[in-house]
């Protein structure tokens, strides 16, 4: 009973943190609702934007999942040197700055890109990377690896004995597909499809860089255009409501269908497969793995090749933007960690399941709300009282922090709950409370997930091209914004140099923070 006061304080802190997140997201939605002023009539452009958003998301999800199945199968049944590295790499697009990847894809698949050069040799016309094609290619680039990891997990969850049993029964690849693989895919694919679909409905930077025009404008892009080109706030607000409805319903659907979670570890084991020893299947799998790896690595290679000679000659403005990006990321990491840690600890300590659920739900709100919706709302809230442009960087950091919160929570909550369950009673009986408990129990136990959460928040913020595009003065923006502007003016060499710097900084931020949680961590 003596420990009552402390947990209540902790839980109270969590409720306050969750409340602020909810107030921010819901407050922005309220501001948007209020500003939309009942202008609830869909114009032709709006329906086109909704249709394009849904079509590109569905196509991207479909293609990602269909391609991911054979790639995951190949990775599940082959052992080769570098397999672990490849599987890890497949987690990397998540922390890759979107605009960097887009530039890489333009260099490989664009009009003057490598693939078009090869096609020209065969007398074929070049690919058009802009419009629906480009948006889908970019989304597949980001989500094929994710879908592959999700499906690979399903494969590895099939008990090894089943494959052994199948082997003693002399089952061929067809029988194994029927009895083992298809039931697993039926359970895994709907969730994987929905995750990718949801991501693609809220992705802004890809549409900004590759979309546009009446035939390839997403709702998010339309919000941006209403803001930037027309400064029509009530129209932007109305579009934000549409976006909220689209991504909110996708998120609800994803909640309803059990969505598989991409876990960090455990993907490095393989099951020996006696049915797959045939040379033709070996060849097929090798080709699939090589193609998937090339698709992932070629765009980055293109940037490295073209960017490296440029790096030394980059103007001072680039380094100034890099500096701004870094401190926005630092601020964003601090806010994310503070929110996620208080909320995770409160969830672990809460005696009422309802309270724990409520706090967790607040943390995940950002999944359903796109950055541009929050951005629009914040702009509407700030505009009457201050100059939004002056606040661009802090606002960007704040929105980035809220966007990273779901991922940070996913890393921290299970670890906090476990630490509390295993050591909570002991700590209670020793009278470890307050700062003592935080320093001696909580932080040491949570070091790894804290490091990982910080790394994710940092890398996501470094690469963000969302709210910043809405608010910032183009001359004082972050590195991704600068890169986007260089691409817009077709200064591709300089763009490649900036992209390389941004890529290196993002990876360095991720690596340093993640490593900070690992070094000397006792598990």
């Amino acid at each position, binding site marked *: 009973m003596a420990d009552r006061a402390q947990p209540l304080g902790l839980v109270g802190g969590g409720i306050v943190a969750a409340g602020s997140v909810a107030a921010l997201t819901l407050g922005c939605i309220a501001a948007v609702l209020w500003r939309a002023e009942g202008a609830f009539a869909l114009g032709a452009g709006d329906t086109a934007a909704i249709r394009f958003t849904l079509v590109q998301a569905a196509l991207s999800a479909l293609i990602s999942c269909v391609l991911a199945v054979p790639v995951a199968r190949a990775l599940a049944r082959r052992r080769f040197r570098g397999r672990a590295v490849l599987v890890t790499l497949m987690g990397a697009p998540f922390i890759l700055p979107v605009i960097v990847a887009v530039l890489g894809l333009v260099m490989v698949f664009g009009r003057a890109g490598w693939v078009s050069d090869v096609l020209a040799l065969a007398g074929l016309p070049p690919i058009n990377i802009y419009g629906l094609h480009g948006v889908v290619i970019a989304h597949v680039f980001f989500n094929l690896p994710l879908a592959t990891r999700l499906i690979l997990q399903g494969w590895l969850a099939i*008990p090894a*004995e*089943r494959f*052994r*049993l*199948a*082997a*003693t*029964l*002399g*089952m*061929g690849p*067809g*029988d194994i597909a029927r*009895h*083992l693989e298809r*039931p697993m895919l039926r359970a895994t694919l709907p969730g994987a499809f929905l995750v990718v679909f949801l991501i693609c409905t809220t992705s802004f930077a890809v549409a900004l860089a590759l979309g546009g025009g009446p035939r390839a404008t997403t709702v998010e892009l339309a919000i941006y255009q209403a803001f930037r080109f027309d400064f029509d706030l009530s129209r932007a607000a109305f579009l934000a409501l549409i976006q909220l409805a689209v991504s909110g319903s996708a998120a609800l659907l994803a909640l309803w269908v059990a969505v598989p979670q991409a876990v960090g570890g455990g993907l490095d084991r393989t099951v*020996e497969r*006696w049915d797959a*020893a045939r040379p033709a299947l070996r060849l097929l799998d090798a080709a699939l793995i090589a193609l998937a790896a090339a698709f992932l690595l070629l765009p980055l290679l293109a940037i490295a090749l073209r960017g490296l000679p440029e790096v030394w000659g980059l103007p001072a403005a680039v380094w100034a933007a890099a500096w701004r990006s870094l401190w926005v990321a630092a601020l964003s990491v601090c806010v994310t960690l503070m929110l996620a840690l208080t909320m995770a600890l409160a969830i672990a300590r809460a005696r009422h399941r309802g309270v724990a659920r409520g706090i967790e739900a607040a943390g995940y709100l950002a999944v359903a709300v796109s950055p541009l919706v929050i951005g629009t709302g914040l702009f509407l809230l700030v505009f009457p009282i201050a100059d939004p442009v002056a606040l661009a960087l802090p606002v960007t950091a704040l929105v980035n922090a809220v966007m990273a919160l779901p991922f940070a929570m996913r890393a921290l909550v299970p670890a906090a709950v476990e630490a509390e369950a295993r050591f909570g009673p002991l700590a209670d009986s020793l009278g470890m409370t307050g700062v003592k408990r935080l320093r001696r129990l909580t932080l040491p136990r949570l070091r790894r997930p804290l490091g990982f959460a910080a790394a994710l928040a940092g890398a996501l913020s470094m690469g963000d091209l969302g709210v910043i595009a809405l608010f910032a003065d183009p001359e004082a923006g972050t590195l991704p914004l600068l890169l986007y502007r260089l691409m817009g003016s077709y200064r591709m060499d300089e763009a490649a140099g900036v992209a390389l710097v941004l890529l290196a900084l993002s990876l360095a931020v991720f690596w340093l923070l993640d490593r900070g949680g690992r070094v000397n961590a006792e598990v």
Partner: protein
Amino acid sequence: MLRFEGVEIVQGGFRLAADLTIDAGAQVAVMGPSGAGKSTLLAAVAGFSAPAAGRILWQGSDLGPLAPGARPISMIFQDNNLFPHLSVFDNAALGLRPSGRLSADEAERVRDAVTRVGLAGLESRRPGTLSGGQQSRAALARMLVQERPLVLLDEPFSALGPAQRGEMVDLVAGLCRERQATLVMVTHDPGDAARLGGDLCIVADGTVSAPMPAARLLADPPAALRAYLG
């Protein structure tokens, strides 16, 4: 007969040597401390791993080049013996045809096997709706229709209670005797070995002992077995 000829199994730092013969039609229990390599031994016979040295022969021919499915073996694992999405009948039918497409004759054989293990009337049930004992019986039905001369069981009934386990050991021993199949069963329970009534091999200290009558060994255990039995 099943002959281990200078067999050496190596896995990382783990080594197990086996040089012994199990007579055709024998019923052999394999016991030993956990981690000693009992399951590893069975996995080598079944073809899931290749020995680093030596040969494993069945009736004089080397099993080495054969894929697991081509070996004269039916195997029952500790768990995951049944496909959860298939009925009892379909699971048993896999022993005859992995594709599941049966002629009328073959379907009759599967039904016989299901009846023989005492699951008549439960053919259309999914494994999830069966008790642990019934699941073991369904796996035995599949073993029956496979009609392979060598039956390997890897702690197959360890999830069952003592009474049920004894019943299942009797059932599987009876079925194998009827068909003159050779039975090798890994177990951690001396009661199973005694109940089986055949021979006993002890896996300990990196070697597999030659089979000896279980009753005699259990009555007067040698050092390795005494250490395990405690």
